[in-house]
């Protein structure tokens, strides 16, 4: 690489970082003050670029004033959308258990996506170039877009403005105070509700601005929400939660590393060919993993800058009452004899539900008793599935043995990644699990000759004795039920009790001789094995697997199931898995805009049952006597 190309690539990195910083800054602000993990932040970005497209097409093709006014108007419009969302939806659920708001914003993602499709149509919409900035200037003899120079300036400009707002206004003082200690703000007699609304609207407007500024660079399209949200999360976490300068630094770091990877292209080291260009598939997650392993609170985050959620502690766990045990046994028996009574498809659907129930229960074990929220649980599901598939296809083992070996592969993955993961806590921990999951995903995605690459692996059918739907149904039912019962038992066992103790009070656990990390590490690995079993069954029920079994969407599905059912219950994840899978199946078949309907139903469930469905039932009908 020559100096000139190096400099140009640095500038490319800076330009790329600008919008990313705006989105991340908004996300960071919102998280800092309200503790909401705003999954819909990418959707705000997407709506921003769509609105800006419409406005600039009308007013911004010829006039610079019209263009920039359109961009600002789009940001304001998205801010207004954020305002409405906060008041109508989020305000109702601040008291819900940790992360529950994530579920609401997930519903929002689905609704916004379908609404965008309905309003703007399916085609990509490439907006106009910015008037007056259409061309390129020559830098070291190479052309560089004028607009990108403006973008490079906008990042620090917005950073400066945010600094002024946060340090020189009363609003800013409150925001900073709330980021450090929410209760203090309440004690100061400040109207917390309006502070939250204001911050949420400001964060949304920043995301909208980030989107609007991209109009001259990329088309508005319907995948932007998902692409942007994962990038933005990475930036926020790498920078340190709640730190705006940290987000700026992280956006620059990731933007530069990406640009340099592209600039380096294919490089050979002593006979080894390394494609840095292909590395861009996953480089931000590698950066995040390294940063978090070295600095568990991000680049500029503060240790302990993530106070515990103020939600109520869950009530003591109790084994099922006699009549509930009887009901569960009855349900199990009914499921066993079900194949006689129904058509084949009910069995197919139930197999999916059993597999996802086990997946969700295993995730819940980490999130609930383990106190470790995982955003990358799909890694272990997928490792189990790939482990089994590869053992069958490449080593010629029979499926029966892979039911044992597949989960062991996942367990080994959990053992490896868990060692790093348990050194962190809270959202940082969750994001490190995501980073590892993405790294595993990218390996499966890239390693064409071994894992089948993006196409995946096919021809994974169970042996003859399991070939019939009802036989496979029975095996899946039995394995999943046994695994779920075992996990449930584990919660009550000394190991589970010690985990819960470590979650409730690490200080006390340490003071009574418990090595909390070690137990968390074992739990992480063990749970990997359980998720792996779900993955193995999934692979053989579908006959094929692809990198999607490892992808973010799978992890998110797991989270949604757990939260939908209720984090603070043990049966919740089973109910959540059943409800989500069934709902999706039913709605997708019946209506065209099924995604919006599904999102809407999730939002309604969130508002109606802020403790999750099972949490609600328990709270309503089985009140604890204390």
């Amino acid at each position, binding site marked *: 690489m020559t100096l000139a190309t190096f400099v140009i690539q640095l500038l490319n990195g800076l330009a790329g970082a600008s919008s990313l910083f705006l989105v991340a800054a908004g996300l960071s602000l919102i998280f800092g003050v309200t503790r909401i993990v705003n999954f819909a932040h990418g959707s705000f970005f997407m709506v921003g670029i769509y609105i800006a497209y419409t406005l600039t097409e009308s007013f911004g093709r010829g006039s610079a004033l019209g263009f920039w006014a359109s961009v600002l108007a789009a940001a304001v419009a998205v801010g207004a959308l954020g305002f409405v969302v906060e008041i109508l939806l989020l305000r109702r659920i601040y008291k819900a258990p940790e992360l529950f708001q994530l579920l609401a914003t997930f519903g929002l993602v689905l609704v916004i996506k379908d609404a965008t499709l309905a309003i703007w149509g399916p085609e990509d919409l490439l907006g106009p170039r910015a008037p007056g900035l259409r061309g390129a200037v020559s830098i070291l003899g190479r052309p560089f877009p004028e607009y990108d120079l403006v973008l490079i300036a906008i990042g620090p400009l917005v950073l400066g403005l945010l600094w002024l707002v946060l340090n020189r206004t009363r609003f800013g003082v409150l925001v900073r105070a709330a980021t450090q200690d929410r209760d203090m703000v309440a004690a100061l007699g400040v109207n917390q509700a309006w502070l939250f609304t204001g911050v949420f609207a400001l964060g949304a407007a920043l995301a909208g601005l980030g989107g609007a500024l991209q109009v001259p660079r990329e088309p508005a399209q319907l995948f932007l929400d998902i692409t942007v949200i994962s990038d933005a999360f990475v930036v926020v976490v790498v920078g340190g939660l709640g730190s705006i300068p940290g987000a700026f630094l992280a956006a620059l770091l990731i933007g530069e590393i990406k640009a340099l990877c592209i600039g380096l292209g294919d490089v050979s080291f002593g006979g080894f060919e390394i494609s840095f260009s292909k590395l861009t598939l996953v480089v931000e997650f590698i950066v995040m993993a390294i940063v978090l392993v070295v600095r568990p609170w991000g680049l500029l985050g503060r240790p302990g800058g993530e106070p515990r959620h103020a939600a109520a502690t869950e009530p003591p766990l109790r084994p099922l009452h006699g009549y509930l045990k009887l009901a569960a046994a009855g349900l199990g028996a009914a499921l066993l004899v079900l194949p006689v009574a129904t058509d084949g498809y009910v069995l197919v659907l139930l197999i999916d539900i059993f597999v996802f129930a086990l997946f969700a229960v295993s995730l819940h074990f980490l999130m609930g008793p383990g106190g470790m929220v995982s955003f990358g649980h799909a890694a272990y599901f997928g490792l189990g599935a790939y482990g089994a598939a590869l053992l069958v296809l490449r080593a010629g083992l029979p499926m029966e043995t892979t039911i044992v070996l597949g989960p062991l592969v996942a367990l080994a993955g959990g053992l490896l990644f868990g060692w790093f993961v348990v050194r962190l806590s809270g959202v940082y921990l969750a994001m490190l699990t995501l980073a590892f999951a993405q790294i595993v995903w990218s390996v499966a995605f890239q390693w064409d000759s071994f894992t089948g690459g993006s196409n995946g692996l096919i021809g994974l059918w169970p042996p003859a004795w399991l070939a019939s739907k009802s036989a496979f149904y029975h095996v899946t039912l039995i394995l999943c039920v046994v695994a779920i019962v075992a996990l449930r038992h584990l919660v009550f066992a*000394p190991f589970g009790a010690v985990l819960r103790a470590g979650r409730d009070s690490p200080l006390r656990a340490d003071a009574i001789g418990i090595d909390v990390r070690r137990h968390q590490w074992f739990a992480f690995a063990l749970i990997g094995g359980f998720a792996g079993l779900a993955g193995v069954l999934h692979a053989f029920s579908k006959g094929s697997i692809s990198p999607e079994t490892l992808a973010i969407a799978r992890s998110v599905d797991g989270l949604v199931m757990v939260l939908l059912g209720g984090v603070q219950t043990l049966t919740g994840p089973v109910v959540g898995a059943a409800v989500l899978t069934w709902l999706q199946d039913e709605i997708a078949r019946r209506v065209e805009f099924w995604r919006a309907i599904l999102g809407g139903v999730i939002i309604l469930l969130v508002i109606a049952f802020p403790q999750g469905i099972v949490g609600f039932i328990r709270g309503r009908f089985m009140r604890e006597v204390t």
Partner: protein
Amino acid sequence: MTVLQVEGLAKSFGGVAAVQGVSFAVEAGHLLALIGPNGAGKTTCFNMLNGQLAPDRGSVRLDGREIVGLKPRQIWRLGVGRTFQITATFGSMTVRENVQVALISHHRRTLGLWPRARDLYRAEAEALLARVGMADQAERAAAVLAYGDLKRLELAVALANTPRLLLMDEPTAGMAPRERVELMALVAGIVRVEGIAVLFTEHDMDVVFAHADRIIVLNRGELIADGVPAQVRADPRVQQVYLGGGTTFGHG
């Protein structure tokens, strides 16, 4: 018999000496109170004893064994129980389960996968709760306990590994005066019977002079007095520290 022997303990934070060359000893069956005005270094001193902070210099010996450099959980295994200034209990568990977890840890069965935790060491847990007067609350969630009851639960948990030494950081902070007296009487009774050594910090001088066998006084990181209550009360340097600032014995 000397249970805890501290010699030349020192710790500075960024050049500011928080504790400088403190030495003292605690005998089995005795209650030693560590007092001093705010910022005297009590908490720093305390945290070095239980392994949360590493001292810059000095030695801490438990029954003659050096424990500097060990982690809190390792020190606990050597027979050191502790209670916290702000109680730390397992809120999502019942009172009995809180004690059972400590017993499970004591018996090194934390990796047990088969039995139910709530069935393990149930009788021992109940006996411990009975000793601190919490037997009737065994089934309640720790999260809903009154503050005084939480302190007593912590004491039961701290006693679960039949400790040689109890470290109690402000055991009566946040309690009503009558409760304080009751709690310290309870502690004093238990340690005398079982021969446990106790080191506690305390703001309430009534509690200190009523229950401590010996008192050591810290001021600006230095030990300025060490003796039985009457000696300490009469020590002019102690009076200077407490009275010189216009405060009386009481809330220091």
